[in-house]
């Protein structure tokens, strides 16, 4: 396959970027999308140009490090698939492919296609945990958890924190990410004591980071490589309303 790539190039965080066109020939349909970029980078390196910087690590769809806007689709055209698991057989010979970084104020560009997603860590640090210092745990079977709840918690816990939800959201909102963690923890008995302080803390951190608000457009769940369901956001809203009514941000209430 021969392809034309138009890639966002931006030397550094403060620099202005632009789309640059590259021709990549002899692409095998068995290559992953990132391997196709590897091929481009090998050629750029040998021809004395700077290779394209892009984030990636496990290349098996679980670490959440890769994230590219491919022809306007977060992670590309195949549903339920991260960019690293996307293969070139999804494209056709002669195609032009636009590749851009995630775009959000909370995810500033570091270089080319690499963005800083530290805002997600801040949301987790603001409450996305259960306080259980090492050594303090009771026996694992002390508290049974209904299978349905455990399964639903797992479904939300499958989030890989890649940021595709934010990248695709017309509002640049990080609600699906926030709601996925909240849903996991609020479905489990272990998560109950901190349930309402958690939701206030995480939503506040989300808003402070500069993410947009949710209008239930549903784009996030369409592009989510792990299929996190939109109704997690309903659960977040309900907990948030309850927490606000209870004054949940205040300890002891």
């Amino acid at each position, binding site marked *: 396959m021969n392809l034309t790539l138009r890639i966002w190039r931006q030397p*550094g965080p403060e620099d202005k970027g632009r789309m640059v066109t590259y021709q990549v020939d002899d692409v*095998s349909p*068995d*290559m992953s999308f*990132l*391997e*196709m970029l*590897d091929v481009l980078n*090998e050629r*750029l*390196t*040998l021809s004395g140009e*700077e*290779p394209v910087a892009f984030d990636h*690590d*496990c*290349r*098996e769809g*679980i*670490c*959440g*490090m890769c994230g590219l806007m491919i022809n306007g689709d977060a992670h590309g055209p195949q549903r339920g*698939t991260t960019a690293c*698991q996307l*293969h070139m057989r999804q494209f056709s010979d002669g195609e032009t492919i636009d590749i851009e970084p995630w775009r959000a104020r909370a995810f500033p560009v*570091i*270089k080319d296609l*690499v963005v800083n*997603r530290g805002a997600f*860590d801040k949301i*987790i*640090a*603001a409450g*996305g*945990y*259960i*306080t259980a*210092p*090492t*050594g*303090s*745990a*009771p*026996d*694992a*079977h002390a*508290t*049974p*958890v*209904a*299978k349905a709840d*455990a*399964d639903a*918690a*797992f479904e939300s*816990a*499958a989030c890989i924190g890649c940021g595709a939800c934010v990248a695709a959201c017309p509002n640049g909102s990080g609600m699906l990410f926030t709601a996925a963690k909240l849903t*996991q923890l609020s479905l*489990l008995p*272990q998560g109950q004591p901190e349930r309402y302080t958690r939701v206030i803390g995480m939503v506040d951190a989300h808003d402070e980071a500069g993410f947009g608000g949710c209008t239930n457009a549903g784009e996030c769940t369409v592009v989510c490589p792990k299929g996190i369901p939109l109704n997690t956001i309903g659960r977040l809203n309900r907990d948030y309303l309850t927490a606000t009514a209870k004054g949940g941000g205040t300890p002891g209430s």
Partner: protein
Amino acid sequence: MDLFTEGDPIADTKAPSGPVEARWDTRRFEAKLVNPANRRKMTVIVVGTGLAGGSAAATLAEQGYRVRSYCYQDSPRRAHSIAAQGGINAAKNYRNDGDSVHRLFYDTVKGGDFRSRESNVHRLAEVSVNIIDQCVAQGVPFAREYGGLLDTRSFGGAQVQRTFYARGQTGQQLLLGAYQALERQIGLGNVEMNARHEMLELVVVDGRARGIVVRDLVTGEISTEMADAVVLASGGYGNVFFLSTNAKGCNVTATWRAHRKGAYFANPCYTQIHPTCIPVSGDHQSKLTLMSESLRNDGRVWVPKATGDDRAPRDIPEDERDYYLERIYPAFGNLVPRDIASRAAKNVCDSGRGVGPTKLGVYLDFADAIDRLGRKAIEAKYGNLFEMYERITGEDPYQVPMRIYPAVHYTMGGLWVDYDLQSTIPGLFVIGEANFSDHGANRLGASALMQGLADGYFVLPSTIANYLASGPLEKVDASHPAAVEARADVEDRIRRLLAVDGDRTVDSFHRELGQLMWEHCGMERSEAGLRKAIDEIRALREQFWQRVRVPGDGEGLNQSLEKAGRVADFFELAELMCVDALHREESCGGHFRAEHQTPDGEAQRDDDRFAYVAAWEYTGTGEPAVLHKEDLKFEYVHPTQRSYK
């Protein structure tokens, strides 16, 4: 020139004597404690945020130490522990099927082919039960049964069901549990997190590890960070093979730099090759993807009987297929341990009967299972794996058999540590896959997660206190001559890498090195092959420093520069791996020497000569390393030859 010399033996002086069940209790009691008020004044550096590093950083911070944590990824949540699929072992005996701490201990020592320490392994088995409690309390969504209790399964040929799991994403869920505990401590200000930072040198002051030199991968800034102790939790070195199931960024740099500063490197030749990975599809291949071992429960492995049989798999009649695992190992069949399944696949491919475009693959066929159980049942069990296979290969495994081939997966070797997980440099602790301690020559399935979390949550936080309590250490800062020198070394190395400006890319060297290692230090090793490999590695390393091209500069994000530094260290490690493999004239676990096999082709250990840990001391690049032997004594589990026939 000799490839190595032999030095004094080395011994683990920290494990107490006495009954193996009581050693961990005794050690914890004898260890000195640090007054809580003093902990606030002590800084511990933790490099790596996987299961071991993440859990250690969180736990140390909970205990009141000031922790500085480093990872090269953009977030601590992305460490490669996240990719572990199968599960985590624990001797809970919830099934009442005869499991116990002693049985897990026994299985692990035996599974490690009698090349691990009994004291360490017993402690691991003891602590395993606490890990599950800890993780459940953190909200890790393990699989449960309808009664609401935890589900377990048997894994990797174990006869008891002791593996806890969260679908095929156990590593992810455990890591997120540790990550969340870590983020909590970051939020509380007890941990200073430095993501996108890479450790490039260890600072040793007066014989003690006192800090590290790191490069901020975003700004390119080099800085020296000092501390009272340094913990390396930087994972394994499987990427020396270029193609492995490791993440692209996994590297040996942190441990190798420590090795160069005096920490002994133990058993580097022990590498685990996982039998069920998706085969290489072409020269563009950048990494290999593992398919869960559980597939072998229902899939049958076969190749055509005739060499060069190019027919489509479905056109090959039953009597022209060789179900070689079932044929050679009738007792265990398709469920033989990883090392045996891997080598058998290599053997049939070497005999010219491999399948697929590259002829490096064997079929894993579900047709019988689909006939027997129905497509629905197979879908329920393996649906997500089948989908993943189809995404990557474009073939539908419900219609055509999967093609699989072994790939490098885990490295049992690592920095030598004593019972306290302290390396030969005082103040330098090594945990998780980065150390060599618990798996001997072969790791059992679902034991990596167990070891990472055991080290991080329970072992290190107890043992590091004993070291810190021996202080207070003399105050040193980044202006200490040793720190200045370490930093200058780092800067000089970066300058040299950038200055070569040759005509080959970093990846092209890495690929070539990986190919050499796979060929000669992979599933089967021989004296001639290893000697050849050592010569070629040396030549290639020289080439690297003359011909590599690293574009850009050291300021700001430069992924080529990051890779170049890692590959440079892989070159040095690769040589040591070959030397270790060459000197170990026996076959054990993940190390198979062609010269040392039973008449029917099985691994042949030589307990009289090689029941020891090989701890290597660095003397200089290309210089003969010094071998220090730690003798292994087996008081509880007596060495036997493994048999799966």
